């Protein structure tokens, strides 16, 4: 019970109530995230319907290979994250730390590849603004496609950065031995967040990369 005194916050009646609140809290938070991205998805859908040709032409300029590799990297990171939660449940501290670090590495790989893609777009003058150049029938609306591309992947990347930082803190806590089989709420909750950010990409990838002809 001495353990419980350090991990149970005073407003809760017991560890079970605390855990339920933490997990339910993360789900509610993810609902707000769905709405946050939802605004952009809704706008994207409306414009893609209206300017279908321009959007497919814009999509043709995305690098399917890099996008595909990144999708694989993220799915793999979701697996290592799930393994981290599993290790926490079984009280395997070393495995927990290893899987957290692996997840962070995969997340950073994703961000690295994303940065390479961004720099390609920059050199190809596909950044919306005065320098934008596009060979095609409807450059104005292709530019709109790239506005969405940068806004949506940019906010997703920001969430990835926050996720990696979160996992770094979790690794530190795990290193200090703060978690046990009874108390690993922060790991579980971080896992939910990480999976959510992955799922956002699972929607972004087909919407942005796969609408084109890529002929």
């Amino acid at each position: 019970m001495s353990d419980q005194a350090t991990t149970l916050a005073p407003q809760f009646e017991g560890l079970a109530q605390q855990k339920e609140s933490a997990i339910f809290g993360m789900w509610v938070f993810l609902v707000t995230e769905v709405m946050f991205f939802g605004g952009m998805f809704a706008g994207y859908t409306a414009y893609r319907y209206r300017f279908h040709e321009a959007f497919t032409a814009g999509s043709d300029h995305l690098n399917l290979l890099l996008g595909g590799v990144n999708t694989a990297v993220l799915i793999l990171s979701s697996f290592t994250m799930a393994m981290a939660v599993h290790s926490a449940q079984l009280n395997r501290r070393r495995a927990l730390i290893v899987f957290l670090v692996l997840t962070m590495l995969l997340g950073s790989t994703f961000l690295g590849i994303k940065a390479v893609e961004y720099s390609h777009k920059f050199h190809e003058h596909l950044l919306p603004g005065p320098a934008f150049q596009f060979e095609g029938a409807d450059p104005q609306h292709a530019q709109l496609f790239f506005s969405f591309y940068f806004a949506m992947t940019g906010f997703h990347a920001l969430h990835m950065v926050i996720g990696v930082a979160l996992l770094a803190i979790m690794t530190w806590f795990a290193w200090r031995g703060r978690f046990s089989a009874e108390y690993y709420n922060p790991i579980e909750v971080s896992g939910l967040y990480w999976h959510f950010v992955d799922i956002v990409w699972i929607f972004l990838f087909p919407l942005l990369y796969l609408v084109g002809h890529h002929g």
Partner: protein
Amino acid sequence: MNAAPPAANAMPKVHYLNVDYGIRSWLFTIDHKRIALLYLGSITLFFVLGGLFATAIRLELLTPAGDLFESETYNKMFTMHGVVMIFFFLIPSIPATLGNFLVPMMIGARDLAFPRINLLSWYIYTLGGLFTLFAILSGGVDTGWTFYTPYSSTYSNTNVMATAVGVFILGFSSILTGFNFIITIHKMRAPGLTWFRLPLFIWAHYATSVIMILGTPVVAIAIALVGLERLFHIGIFNPALGGDPVLFQHLFWFYSHPAVYIMILPSMGVISEIVCCFSRKKIFGYSFVAFSSIAIALLGFLVWGHHMFVSSQSMYAGMVFSILSFLVAIPSAVKVFNWTATMYKGSVMYNAPMLYAMGFIGLFTMGGLTGLFLSTLATDVHLHDTYFVVAHFHYIMVGGALMGYLGGIHFWWPKISGRLYPEAWARFSALIIFVGFNLTFFPQFILGYLGMPRRYHAYPPEFQVLNVMSTAGASILAVGYAIPLIYLFWSLRYGPAAGPNPWQAKGLEWQTSSPPPTHNFPETPVVTEEAYEYYPGAEAERV
């Protein structure tokens, strides 16, 4: 009849206010009651600031000529009045103060589920407030509180960016508050406190929280995209880059219409509590009142298009939005009828909170009914962007939300401070506010109907009489707001001790001492009856 307490009500020796002194014990507190007071202080400051802008507007409109301010300055005045009052006063008003204080107490919990997140929400609020203050002090912003593109994203040369960042940051404090309430209400209710025994204040806050977490992220992304547009020239709302400014209006109103219900629903919760207590009766139709809150929250998300009847949305979309807007009137009317039915044959006591509640019922009804004029397509084309709209939403937001807020502050003041406010002064100022409010805003219905547009600093001379009435009313209103500010401070020191339950009210918050101890209840209470059992069995007798 006065619910005067027995004279010998001693204050408890140790309570949440005197458990610790010093600035650090406030700035680092995680006690929901202290955080509520931090919010109370901050929103009062912003209320005064917003009031100053309102004063400037009413002074300018005293005469037909635009003689006090340049039109550009006037644009800034009404913009900042709107931004400050809506985002920094009305949206946090009841949830962040009374809600923060009472949600855990009413459900018999020791605190909210996430006390640190609660404190974080106040810091986020403060940070957002500082950005906005910076924007105001360094020249102001003139886009209107709605930030419509492309003016806000491309043309305005004022501090749009700082204001937008302020509002964006502020949104997160609102999200965190709603988030905390939802988890707390779901997971931390005292034993025996089932959903249908909850006070209606809790139902109202639950509905409000749902709007906060579903709506606020959407306005956050809309404002963030405006920011990206100003900074990086992406063009989602910019026609020159292929975008569409009307998309911004859709995203903005998807939040900002439900935001009206963020402001009014908590007020409705307060009114339910007050009406039952001062009528000494159980609420009429508990489940109808409870579900009407949920219905308002959900329907509120389907009506945003009624702000856009004249901004190029299709006529058929307009018709659908018009019908859906009419539907919101149903749960709103359910509440008004049920409060009235609760008062019917009750032992009504005219204490200050009840005066505010009765004021609310009347003014909200006026505001709601004039809303039907505006949700009718054809009349809206005539009334759109006139003072009729201004009067309508002030009846809801000031006549409704603010009256409820003041009523609630008076009702729970003995619980918050442990002391009674001076009843005679409170009744007097409630009356002054009611009179001043109607004198300010009723003439604006007529002005709008006659065609005076909003957001201009000059107007034709034939509108002057009504405008002078409105400005006179605003000065009475200002006096009405100043009086409670003075006597509430006065009562902190000189008010008689209130005792745990000066109104003989039901509800868990009245079962503990006033002011309550840090963890609210010495022991977790057990609930064995429904809410508002003022006279057990009275319901059956009446039937």
